[in-house]
């Protein structure tokens, strides 16, 4: 126990400042009202759905949970069920074998809801493209609010995508 506490004390707080929203990532105009966004901005429940990634994007979502980024400190929490979620974070091209599961997850998520597509695959199908087995980009299957390019996008970029999704956008309110 002593060793454990010593390690914690020695490490200190390593969290870095969060990135700002970036309007360039937005795919659909902000649909949610100021009131909703104000709530989401303080306590955002995210459900991750891997729709067919190579697992690279997942590595960066895990990394975003490391102490450098302190997601919980920003009010962001990953939840176990889409029914508890405000936002879906979707990785991968959508494998046709996952198409139905993704649609169902989207339908199970209560309104108001947001979708952030992660990675080049989520944005445009990436190296896997469209084929007999892949539907390509996430937007081909469910509406996408914000898309974050990168292969995979770094944790700060993922965080930026999430923060963009819950920011006012062109509506301009704060």
């Amino acid at each position, binding site marked *: 126990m002593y060793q454990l506490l010593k390690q914690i004390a020695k490490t200190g707080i390593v969290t870095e400042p969060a990135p700002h929203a970036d309007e360039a990532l937005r795919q659909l105009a902000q649909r949610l009202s100021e009131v909703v966004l104000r709530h989401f901005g303080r306590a955002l429940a995210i459900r991750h*759905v891997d729709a067919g990634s190579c697992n690279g994007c997942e590595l960066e979502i895990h990394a975003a949970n490391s102490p450098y980024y302190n997601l919980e400190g920003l009010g962001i929490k990953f939840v176990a069920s*889409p029914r508890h979620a405000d936002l879906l974070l979707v990785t991968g091209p959508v494998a046709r074998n996952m198409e139905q599961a993704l649609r169902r997850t989207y339908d199970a998520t209560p309104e108001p809801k947001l979708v952030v597509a992660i990675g080049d695959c989520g944005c445009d199908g990436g190296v*896997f493209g469209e084929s007999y087995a892949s539907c390509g980009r996430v937007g081909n299957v469910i509406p996408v609010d914000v898309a974050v390019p990168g292969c995979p996008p770094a944790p700060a970029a993922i965080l930026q995508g999430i923060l963009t999704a819950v920011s006012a956008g062109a509506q301009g309110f704060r």
Partner: protein
Amino acid sequence: MPARRAAIEPAQLRSACESARARNERLVALWGSDETARSGGFALHLALAGRSGLAWLTVALAREHPRYPGIADIFPSANRMQRAAYDLVGIHAQDSPDHRKWLRHRAWPGGSFPLRKDFDLASRFPASDDRYPYVKVEGEGVHEIPVGPVHAGTIEPGHFRFSIVGEKILRLEERLGYKHKGIEKRFESMTLADGARLAGRISGDSTVAFAWAYAMAAEGASSTQPPRRALVLRAILLEIERIANHLGDLGYLGNDVALAFGFYQFWRLKEDLLRLCAELFGHRYLMDFVVPGGVARDLSSRGAERLLERLASIQTEVASLRSIYDEHAGAQDRFIMTGQVTPELADRLGLCGMAGRASGIGRDLRVDYPVPPYEQLDVRIATQTRGDVAARAAVRFDEFAESLRLIRALVARLEPGEIKVPLATAAGGRCGIGWTEGWRGDVLVALETADGGRIHRLHPHDPSWQNWPLLERAVMGNIVPDFPLINKSFNLSYSGHDL
């Protein structure tokens, strides 16, 4: 790479497998191909690992009703591979007790075979029914819990069906294939040079292992000799990949036993390493570094020094984290005797790689068939015999330390020189094999070329194929709440398996 290729008759297949099994050889991979345009029929391929290296056996099959005698009773891991070979190529394993589909769900109908040459990559089918006959477990007090494909945590999609009594798992049945995205078919529309990027994305956490195996296969098929410096750099990166994954998994093993401290500490260290990788190699996970003919970037001597410094500081911290884990009664209580695979079972069913070494299967390509630069390094294998979560954690700790030693030795052997040569043009009909020891286990890439520097057939094989069925066994008799921990301790690939 010590590999030989042989053609055998369907009638010889079973006896060849039986004698291989008797010599303690293992089945590395099984796949099919469409040769109708070249020889008139189809083909079944097997890769077997023997004492002297890899044997690639090819069995020519008829054009009409292509079939061969099944071998899953000899090599149990062949079961799912035979089913996948049917789904994709339409070659049938006779007398096999399990003829259910495996990779095919809804995307294409039965009777269509994506890896046949007359099947267009861009084909679309209306989503078909997906009826899959799970094995029913009946008895008093038996309940079924279906989980997935979308899971509660950030993990890849798969379906797990537990049959339980009270809290105890009687049986687990896995269903995979949700991530099938047509990787093998896509390779066939690519040149050898283009394919490298895709190879590095078969399984994102093993990008170096796959990209190197791919490059080795492409270099073999085109008789290209990559420069020595490139080989040393590839090995440095393969060991970094092992370290990064082991750090992440050790963190999650802590997390799954309510020791969030472990997660935060190990993921902080992993992040430190990833950031340095981005600076030195242009990518946090080292994608697109290994290319056919060599590597894409050089490492300066200052860069190498920084790498060694960073690794030394990570090593000091991991040493104290290991003693914290070892002395943490709560963690050890959850780790020990949980999710056990005995050496006997591991041997019988063909457990391989890191999980195999935790169950006493002392195999490691870097030791058994060391390709340059490993032949100079005397890699020390890490093994345990208890085969439980604790053993898989211990192997990770030991391999972490050994990879550090190897990186130091490799940096010391980095001599000035070229890092890349142009990939020679391969004629059609050439073959190449790549085989590397990734962090999870041995990764294989088997390649046959088409004319014009293109790919006729490329089969990438992830060791998860062998190990997924053992996860079903490892959880038996454990309680359902320990499943995430046991699953994490194997950390198998879905994408690398589903392709």
